């Protein structure tokens, strides 16, 4: 046992030392996931529902101007102020940049015979997505009702009072964060790692190592040690940025998260090790890593939550290696589960780990 494992740790330590001396590798390993985190984190950060709307105001009345100004202040809406004619607004709506267009006709806000401003606004929305249009129309109706009440001094005997509550619900960022961590594991483990062995085959160093009693499995495991250390550090950096910059709401315990992430790293890095160990050069490893990584990227819940998928697809994708990793991390981080409550996830991961490492040891080629 000691004869088998001692060389693995010696090599793993040497590889890690090399890695820390390679500024380019360090830069990309730590910077790329962070870049990714900032892009997607900013996209998903805002959890308030808001609608992109445009107001086309044909009216010159004070009332209409005030109404537009008030709407601009309302947090429910994001007013696109650069759109000022109906045709342009409709075109943008067609592209999905605007949810709803509100048109205020010329006579909107002009005073009627009783001296009260009156008029009718038109809410345009895409037939294909009626929810947003109806919601905006409803909100507008509510605003107008309020104004009507003020103007007519009528008191409605019956009314609905809306009271939004801040529950312990997840923000979109909270939900997406585990996917971003999963993506980081995937990209480092497959794209980064799969090219490591082919590069070493090119220099001839693996030939030299083969001249020693070192076994392929020992070399694979020592490389895993190196990349697991690097990968875990990269996750820690991402996590700190998530907590500080994006106010991530961590509800689980850190020990569970670290242990579970390490398990995830071991499973996913097995794919990179198998691909790199088999490939004779980068021309073989690059397309194969894409072939493995892209389906995982889209089907494991990184970009699209799996609950949006049809049932049969949810069933299948549940067995992919990355799915239980992302799910498990999310359960720990957002639901506060411990690693002992993740039996099904750990079982799927364990099976994948056995399969992929048996393959990795078998297909390894020294040159």
């Amino acid at each position: 046992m000691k004869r088998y494992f001692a060389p693995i740790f010696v090599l793993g330590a040497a590889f890690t030392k090399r890695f820390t001396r390679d500024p380019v590798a360090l830069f990309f390993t730590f910077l790329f996931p962070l870049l990714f985190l900032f892009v997607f984190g900013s996209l998903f950060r805002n959890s308030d529902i808001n609608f992109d709307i445009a107001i086309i105001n044909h009216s010159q009345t004070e009332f209409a101007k005030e109404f537009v100004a008030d709407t601009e202040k309302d947090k429910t809406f994001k007013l696109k102020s650069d759109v000022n004619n109906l045709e342009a607004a409709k075109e943008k709506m067609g592209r999905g940049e605007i949810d709803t267009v509100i048109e205020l006709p010329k006579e909107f806000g002009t005073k009627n015979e009783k001296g009260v401003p009156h008029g009718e606004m038109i809410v345009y929305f895409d037939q294909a997505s009626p929810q947003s249009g109806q919601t905006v129309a409803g909100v507008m109706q509510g605003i107008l009702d309020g104004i009507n009440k003020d103007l007519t001094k009528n008191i409605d005997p019956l009314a609905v009072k809306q009271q939004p509550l801040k529950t312990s619900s997840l923000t979109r960022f909270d939900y997406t964060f585990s996917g971003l961590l999963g993506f980081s594991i995937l990209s480092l483990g497959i794209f980064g790692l799969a090219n490591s062995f082919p590069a070493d085959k090119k220099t001839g160093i693996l030939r030299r190592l083969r001249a020693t009693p070192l076994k392929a499995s020992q070399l694979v495991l020592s490389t895993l040690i190196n990349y697991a250390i690097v990968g875990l550090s990269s996750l820690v950096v991402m996590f700190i940025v998530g907590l500080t910059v994006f106010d991530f709401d961590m509800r689980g315990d850190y020990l569970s998260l670290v242990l579970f992430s390490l398990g995830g790293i071991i499973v996913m890095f097995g794919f990179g090790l198998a691909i790199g160990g088999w490939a004779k050069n980068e021309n073989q490893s690059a397309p194969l890593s894409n072939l493995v990584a892209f389906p995982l990227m889209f089907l494991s819940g990184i970009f699209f939550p799996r609950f949006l998928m049809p049932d049969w697809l949810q069933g299948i994708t549940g067995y992919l290696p990355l799915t239980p990793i992302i799910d498990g991390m999310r359960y720990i981080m957002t639901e506060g589960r411990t690693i002992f409550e993740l039996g099904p996830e750990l079982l799927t991961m364990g099976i994948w780990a056995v399969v992929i490492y048996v393959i990795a040891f078998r297909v390894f080629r020294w040159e």
Partner: protein
Amino acid sequence: MKKPIVTVKDLKKSYGHKQVVKGISFEVQEGEIFGILGPNGAGKTTTFETIEALRPLESGEIMLDGRNVAHEPGKVKSIIGIQLQSTAFYDKLTLTEQLKMFAGIYGTKIDSAKLLEEVELTDKASSYPEKLSGGQKQRFSIAAALVNEPRVLFLDEPTTGLDPQARRHLWDLIASIKKKGITVMLTTHYMEEAELLCDRVAVMDSGEIIALDSPKALVKQLLKRGFTKKQHVEQASLEDVFIDLTGKALRD
């Protein structure tokens, strides 16, 4: 009486349809320097790599220090040292770290400073191998092949591409390794190198051993067959001039 440490019996090796080693047999005695000479493509490197358990044995039998190479490749690898024709090392690891890494693979501890001193690389202990010159790389490569105190050291064209000073220093190094009792097997294209270093040489051509004896005996046999060479009167060669002009000290 010396006993054989490497015994090769009827070794054959083919790549596809081309047979590159055609049933060679020879023995290497413990403690000697055994050279394999031959033009490019004669099968020298293939023969080496099969003895070193780097290539599977197709046909024949190879015993190394009483162990069957085909049955115990791992065991054999642990008692030999190998310098490959093209040397490669990990970058961004100092020479000391590389030697410790290799020692770790064998599960032994080494005095890396002493080993580097033996190959005249003490002042490069904290350098990365990518900063070494050709001759330094070859010497370091030999140091790395010695970490496990091997029974047999394999050197595949150790002096190819080196300048005369570096080559002479390598010859001294190889001679000192022999003095420690390590058996050395080497290939070379330089006849004066073989003549100077080797106790016995095998001459290979097209996958066959066509002569095997000590360099002196081989020369004697040739002369006996009536070989004459145009007499030359110079008592020195151009290499002697070169060494006289530039000195014996290492340049790298």
